[in-house]
């Protein structure tokens, strides 16, 4: 797959069809990968990487890249294409400047999951019929892929590319029986006290590194409210319990109806806070209350959060009274 992508990238660069390629750059380790822009074919040849660790969603970088002169080609996995469409809906991406290469994806590996299994010193990875062969400095390891995929991949919502100019590999289908709301349901069934404790436990670990915000394709404001003294919620660093009481709630609310559940927030969180569970709660709620809606499914959709109906609609009192202290 990597060679196929690289070859296609080279071809596009060389024949001048695009000026830049947005892809993944190899780092020191095989799992140490950075999204980057390649303009030089030689650089691409040498440093472009694509493997089971390339989880990063590249669509957000297009806000800046597509605003520049010339054309940029980008590799998008199925879930990334939803973010791409959503950003197009919000007029953040200059579609005409982007050449979208959809790439097949079966899931991306969580390095932490490997480490938890005691796999360390990783030097290579390849996938073979549902299992992963991992080269380490201690020898080869084989693990069932599903067990070390990131949560968002285990609960993949769609293998279908909702947008592409060309495809490498096959296009898949929307996963109808995906279980991504199971954990949200589990939380909903807890008592208020249990939920509170769960979330305090998670959110109190927040060190306010802003990684979730910076990686999130929906969190792409020109100026974030938390950096803006006029917003009334200026707060640039962890100082009090702002992170528990305000930051993540406001962030989740701000991206509600626009979040495509790409799962980048949880992927990058150094404290392993399951932030996607906040976003999924909103998604689950509006699907149940206002009808199914998938952000980014197509360009120009009206989000149920911004929409309204003059007919009967759920009243705020539908929220189940979690009255216990």
């Amino acid at each position, binding site marked *: 797959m990597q060679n196929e992508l690289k070859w296609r990238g080279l071809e596009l660069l060389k024949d001048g069809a695009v000026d830049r390629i947005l892809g993944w750059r190899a780092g020191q380790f095989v799992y140490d990968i950075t999204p980057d822009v390649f303009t030089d074919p030689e650089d691409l040849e040498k440093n472009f990487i694509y493997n089971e660790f390339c989880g990063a969603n590249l669509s957000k970088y297009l806000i800046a890249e597509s605003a520049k002169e010339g054309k940029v080609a980008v590799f998008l996995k199925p879930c990334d294409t939803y973010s791409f469409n959503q950003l197009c809906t919000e007029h953040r991406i200059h579609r005409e400047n982007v050449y979208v290469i959809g790439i097949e994806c079966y899931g991306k590996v969580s390095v932490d999951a490997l480490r938890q299994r005691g796999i360390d010193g990783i030097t290579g990875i390849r996938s073979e019929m549902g299992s992963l062969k991992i080269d380490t400095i201690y020898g080869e390891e084989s693990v069932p892929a599903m067990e070390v995929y990131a949560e968002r991949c285990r609960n993949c919502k769609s293998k279908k590319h909702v947008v592409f100019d060309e495809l490498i590999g096959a296009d898949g289908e929307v996963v109808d029986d995906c279980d991504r709301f199971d954990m949200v349901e589990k939380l909903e069934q807890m008592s208020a006290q249990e939920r*509170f404790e769960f979330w305090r436990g998670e959110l109190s670990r927040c060190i306010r590194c802003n990684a979730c915000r910076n990686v999130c394709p929906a969190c792409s404001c020109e100026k974030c409210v938390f950096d803006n003294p006029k917003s009334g*919620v200026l707060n640039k660093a962890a100082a009090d319990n*702002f992170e528990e009481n305000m930051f993540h709630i406001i962030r989740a609310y701000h991206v509600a109806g626009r979040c495509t559940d790409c799962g980048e927030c949880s992927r990058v969180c150094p404290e392993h806070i399951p932030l996607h569970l906040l976003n999924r709660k909103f998604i689950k709620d509006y699907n149940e209350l206002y009808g199914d809606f998938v952000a980014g499914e197509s360009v120009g959709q009206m989000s149920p959060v911004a929409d309204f109906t003059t007919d009967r609609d759920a009243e705020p009192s539908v929220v189940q009274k979690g009255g216990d202290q």
Partner: protein
Amino acid sequence: MQMNDKEWKPKIIAFCCNWCSYSGADLAGTNRLSYPAEVKIIRVPCSCRVNPMFILRAFQQGADGVILCGCHPGDCHYSTGNYHTRRRMTLLFSMLNYLGVESARTRVEWVSAAEGARFVSVMDSFVADITKLGPNRRLEDLRCKTN
């Protein structure tokens, strides 16, 4: 400021839209009806002006309950504002509930300019609910104190 439970009185912020609910509250006054003084009203042009950030801010600053009052659906001075409120607050309250914040601390009520008596009964019941719940400790900015 430490108070024992007997002295404790809830702090309640009521956002009222200028056209219906704020007038409804005025009418309650004109008719000399009475409701608990813990309710403090903030006037907004429309219930749809209320940003979820305001509600979180109120809780963070020590409010024990936040209530939003707007025109009845269909009667919005700006035609559609309260329809937006309805959705936004449904989703926000559900999220707060999900985070373990007692959902009785948040409420939306539709109160028209003619419903002075209803304004009073809404406030009475809301204050009673919050009094029963006791002080808001979950979203208050009290990390040092509670631990």
